[in-house]
């Protein structure tokens, strides 16, 4: 039997991976064993099928179901050459150059195979952690320098320390999987491609802080991730990885999946907690911080998927090994997501410090349209626009902050030179107006007025006066908003104004 790997990831599925798998089964079912894996993250190659050969896993992509018989005839099962053949997948520069700590198994293993998981290093970290005291585990995570991957970059060890030190019989670990930023999909790919890794990370967190219950809050737009996680949790219970006596250690940890209802704001951690409690997703003011007063008022770890999924490797190899990656205060690896108008989009996990230019023009291959890149938006819809002139910027939390930008969740959305940045600024306000929870005034009313003011500026109505109003509004939203939603909305607006002021003059609007 020859093993053929076909992704089950929903990005691959959206371009026909399931049909390709069916076609393979139909054409060569008796000769092959099909393993459904996560995606390797080279989305331009999807559906990318891989055949196990003596040389390694040889890839073909993008494959359409119609091409399957032809590929088999051409010797696909032997790893023969073909115009769709990309060679040994692991040797592709795109993959070879990555440091896949978090995504090590994604695209390689069957996400729901506990055997695969353990064979590829799974549970090593958890076993290590369970041998050690909670305080030791927290210390290890602190030493790794791991910071929150959701966007804010808060040191995970400090957060865990706070929860550990807060007395309470009931504590929670909550995973924020409400991945709503434009151009981001790494959380989803991990949940679909290696759910046990997240489960393991959350279990380690539970042990480290003394929690007995965990929730994964997944956005409703991710039905495949929800199904995969639920199945993985069932399997984990069956194998004693979750439940009353995790791996015989005496640790009790129960884990549940909760599905959001389509509000972007529920990706904000306090809104997420409200939503988990069954209330409308509305931001809470901090203090109190969730680490002390979190879910149902109990001490709660709230971390992003990638933060928690980084932990098993940290525990397996030690915090020091993890901290060897990266630059300055940005340690370890970041899972970049290249999206938008880009030739080669997908997931690229590498140490912090790589420049935007290397990512966008190097690995990403520039725009898909072939036109020059004009700007990228980093860190989701509330991230700043970075012009090409700043592509030397190293991916480092502090360096970005200094350039009035942010790394966020690592999403990079590329625009070519046809983009009208005033429209992008307007869109930022519109997005805020659409997604604001409505609690605080600067965000609730300010975003609506922001759209109106930008319209006046681009419409030529007292541009100078209205620019002053817009600046004041941005200042108010930045300083006065309750949460990052309203507080960061001025980022794209101001960066667009700063780097592309000409786009806001009415004359440009009138030229065809």
């Amino acid at each position, binding site marked *: 039997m020859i093993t053929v790997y076909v992704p089950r990831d929903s990005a691959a599925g959206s371009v026909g991976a399931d049909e390709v798998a069916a076609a393979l089964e139909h054409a060569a079912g008796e000769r092959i064993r099909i393993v459904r894996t996560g995606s390797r993250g080279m989305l331009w190659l999807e559906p990318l099928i891989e055949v196990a050969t003596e040389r390694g896993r040889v890839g073909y992509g993008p494959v359409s179901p119609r091409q399957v018989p032809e590929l088999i005839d051409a010797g696909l099962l032997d790893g023969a050459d073909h115009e769709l053949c990309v060679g040994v997948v692991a040797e592709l520069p795109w993959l070879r150059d990555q440091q896949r700590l978090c995504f090590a198994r994604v695209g390689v293993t069957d996400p729901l195979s506990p055997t695969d998981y353990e064979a590829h290093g799974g549970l090593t970290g958890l076993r290590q952690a369970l041998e050690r005291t909670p305080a030791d585990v927290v210390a290890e995570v602190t030493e790794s320098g791991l910071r929150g991957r959701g966007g804010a970059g808060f040191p995970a060890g400090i957060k865990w320390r706070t929860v550990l030190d807060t007395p309470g019989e009931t504590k929670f670990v909550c995973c924020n999987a409400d991945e709503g930023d434009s151009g981001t999909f790494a959380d989803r790919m991990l949940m679909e491609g290696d759910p046990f890794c997240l489960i393991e990370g959350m279990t380690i967190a539970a042990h480290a802080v003394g929690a007995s219950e965990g929730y994964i809050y997944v956005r409703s737009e991710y039905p495949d991730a929800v199904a995969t996680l639920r199945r993985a949790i069932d399997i984990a219970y069956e194998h004693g990885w979750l439940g009353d006596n995790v791996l015989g250690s005496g640790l009790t940890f129960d884990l549940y999946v909760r599905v959001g209802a389509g*509000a972007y*704001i529920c990706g904000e951690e306090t809104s997420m907690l409200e939503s988990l409690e069954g209330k*409308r997703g*509305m931001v809470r*003011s*901090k*203090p109190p911080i969730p680490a002390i007063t979190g879910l149902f008022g109990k001490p709660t770890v709230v971390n992003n998927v990638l933060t928690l999924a980084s932990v098993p490797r940290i525990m397996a190899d030690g915090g020091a090994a993890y901290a060897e990656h990266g630059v300055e205060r940005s340690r370890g690896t970041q899972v970049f997501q290249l999206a938008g108008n880009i030739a080669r989009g997908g997931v690229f996990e590498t140490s912090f410090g790589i420049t935007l230019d290397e990512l966008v023009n190097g690995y990403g291959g520039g725009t898909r349209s072939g036109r020059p890149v004009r700007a990228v938006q980093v860190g989701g819809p509330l991230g700043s626009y970075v012009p090409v002139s700043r592509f030397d910027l190293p991916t480092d939390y502090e360096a970005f902050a200094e350039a009035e930008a942010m790394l966020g969740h690592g999403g990079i959305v590329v625009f070519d030179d046809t983009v009208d940045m005033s429209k992008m600024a307007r869109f930022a306000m519109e997005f805020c*107006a*659409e*997604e*604001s*929870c*409505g*609690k*605080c*005034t*600067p*965000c*609730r*009313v*300010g*975003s*609506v*007025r922001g759209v*109106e*003011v930008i319209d006046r500026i681009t419409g030529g109505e007292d541009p100078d*006066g209205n620019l002053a*109003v817009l600046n*004041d*509004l941005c*200042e*108010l939203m930045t*300083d*006065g*908003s*309750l949460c990052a939603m309203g507080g960061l909305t001025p980022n794209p607006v101001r960066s667009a104004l700063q780097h592309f002021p000409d786009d806001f003059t009415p004359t440009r609007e009138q030229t065809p």
Partner: protein
Amino acid sequence: MALLKEPDFGTPAKPGPATVSVEVDGHPVTVPEGTSVMRAAALSGIEIPKLCATDSLEAFGSCRLCLVEVDGKNGTPASCTTPVADGMKVRTQTPRLEKLRQGVMELYISDHPLDCLTCSANGDCELQDMSGIVGLRQVRYGYEGENHLDLGKDTSNPYFDFDPSKCIACSRCVRACGEVQGTFALTIEGRGFESKVSAGAGELFMDSECVSCGACVQACPTATLQEKSVVDLGMPNRTVLTTCAYCGVGCSFKAELRGDELVRMVPYKDGGANEGHSCVKGRFAFGYATHPDRVTTPMVRDSIDDEWREVDWDTAINHVATRFRELQDTYGQGAIGGITSSRCTNEEVYVVQKMVRAAFGNNNVDTCARVCHSPTGYGLKQTFGTSAGTQDFRSVAAADVIVVIGANPTDAHPVFASRMKRRLREGAKLIVADPRRIDLVRSPYIEASHHLQLTPGTNVAVVNAMAHVVVTEGLVDESFVADRCEEFDAWAEFIAREENSPEAVEAITGVPAEQLREAARLYATGGNAAIYYGLGVTEHSQGSTMVMGMANLAMATGNIGREGVGVNPLRGQNNVQGSCDMGSFPHELSGYRHVSDDAVREVFETLWQRPIIPEPGLRIPNMFDSALDGSFRGLFVQGEDIAQSDPNIQHVHAALEAMDLVVVQDLFLNETAKFAHVFLPGTSFLEKDGTFTNAERRINRVRPVMSSKTGKHEWEVPCEIAEAMGYEMSYDHPSEIMDEIASVTPTFAGVSFDKLDKLGSVQWPCNEAAPEGTPTMHVDAFVRGKGKFVATPFVATTERSSRKFPLLLTTGRILSQYNVGAQTRRTANVAWHPEDVLELHPHDAEERGISDGDDVTLSSRVGRTHLRAMISDRMPVGVVYTTFHHPDTGANVVTTENSDWATNCPEYKVTAVQVGLARHTDTEQARAAAASR
């Protein structure tokens, strides 16, 4: 006084011994740890602009007006949500902050109607105030942008309007509905700019879960939620602080007037009982005071078949005095008596009982507490030594286990219920003992740990079984019992008997033994455990026994004498406690001292210059019996409608008809007035000057909001009758009556109007030992010295279901109506409860072919009445329920003469009945009869 604007510190006080010192704009201030920067600033005299913050609600942090700067920190945190930290230096006025605040106000006003001058909140609008304070001079966004100005008004509530076009989405109303009231009827619908306050799922206020408590109206900073009376009459310009005259919670209110016209009643934040909260009755249902049905002129007639004749006060009083004396001359000194009212002030009650004891020269005085909480007086006096609840209301915030027995606080004591619900939401455990599934059993964020759904009439068996578990499972607080109590061993021997075990009584009570055991264990071991009870305890043949049973349970587990515990009656009427305190019972002088006590009598005899009979007089039911046997001929009844509210009405009517002189003093021509020969107009609480004492022994001032509509103070009337009967009894001011009460009553020795005006209120005992009153009783020792255990054998009532009357009727109250409804039926509250209904279980309904809304007959061995059926799974099978707010319901037509063995409090809560579909002719007749009344 001028219109009282209470200070608003923005966020609630944080209690706690630890303090923090900070500097606000250079002013040092020391505050309790956890205090917000906003509150600390307010305490140091600096008001930080705010809109979403108010000190009755937890900080929310949404308006972003209250931003401040903190030295050494980046950013501009909201002062309402930022707690102070030691050494913090806060700046509240900087150019940066001014600009931000103007920016926020600019956004608000860009979506707000510019009709300040014609707005009903003009002058009482925080949005208007803040615009001024931040110096907003322009709205650069213009007024043409997206807005909410077209949203329509909801005028469905009879008392307030909701105008969403003026809403600033601060959520104060939503938060008040949840945090303060605990109903969670309001919500924010939609998101972002579409956010909109909504009662339920886009419903009208009247169609929603809203209980019309007014907390949202109170909390609203603009005209969005506004009293209709303010819309109609305009802003009030002066305030009179007074006390609500509905239930025994005794809420303090600011009566706000414009000139002499009462515009609205606003709950007073400094009110000890309510701390700024209210219910639909106290807040809104005061219109009866000026209802056209009020009778304001005295009237007399020779026979109850004659028409009334209006007379002047002197004529009426002389007529009463002469006729009373004649009756005494003919039938003896004991042939007349009086009934005091729990609706009246302490001073009014005191003068009535003084009139009876000194001028009538007998002890035939009783009070309407006879029919509600007399067993409380007896039971707590026997066990603890004083006839009153042990705690203040605030104590519930320290309870870990709350037991509610035979009470329905969310309907009958709503403002206290809100406190209780707040504590339950914080995690206190709840045990409810009630045949009916009252709202508290399951309400938003609250679920009772145990609902002991007992058969009516089996309270004592249940409380005994709980005590049995405590004693036999080793859960007794041995040191408390040893140090503080007596007669424990005999009681323990009794209670440990197998007949009192949960298993033995299960068949009687219907409560599963294991559930009862768990409830008992929770009560005994769950931390501070507090018992709250109502008329479902007292109005039984063993009402007094049950009160003692609860006292035993509390003593055995050491749940007495500190915050968070206790045995607490929820009093039905505003001044039940006070009317009992004032010596209204025939066997007791003020302060619960028996008439046979020579030393006590001597105090009164010396002051009153009249001998006092050392024997008890007649109780209300005894008066009726004696009227029928001819020895009791004349009665003065103040403020109680005995012909409607007392049991076995036919018997009461016959007794009243048998009397030669019935004098009624009331606001309205009530049912009893139909049997009266003299009607003396009474005053409403808005006209009274005096004190009420609530269920927590808190003496509150009642101050006149308007002049008496009868031309006389109510306390003057008994004085004048006494004088006309030849006994000098005159006071210049009600404060003199209180001074007299204080001089003859040790527990009131320190009470005076002056002190009440100074402190707001005091809880008796208030004397040299406790000059500012006593919030918690029995702290170091019981009033009687040692707490006394009393054996409480369960004796089943003789009223039990039979083949002919297979169901048990029990009665209760509803939120919007009050008792016999004399007041609330004369307000817009009828919008919620136009008629009493008979609640019955679907099974009982189906068996009788009854559908929801059918007219049914309700009959007992003494009478029959008609009601509309409401099928309800709140009821257990075999038990039916009704309220008694409407006279044509005639609930007391079916109730029996059974009563508590010790006090003769009627057994209202158990009547064996049958229910059947009414024949059409019955219904028509009933309607006609009701109409004719």
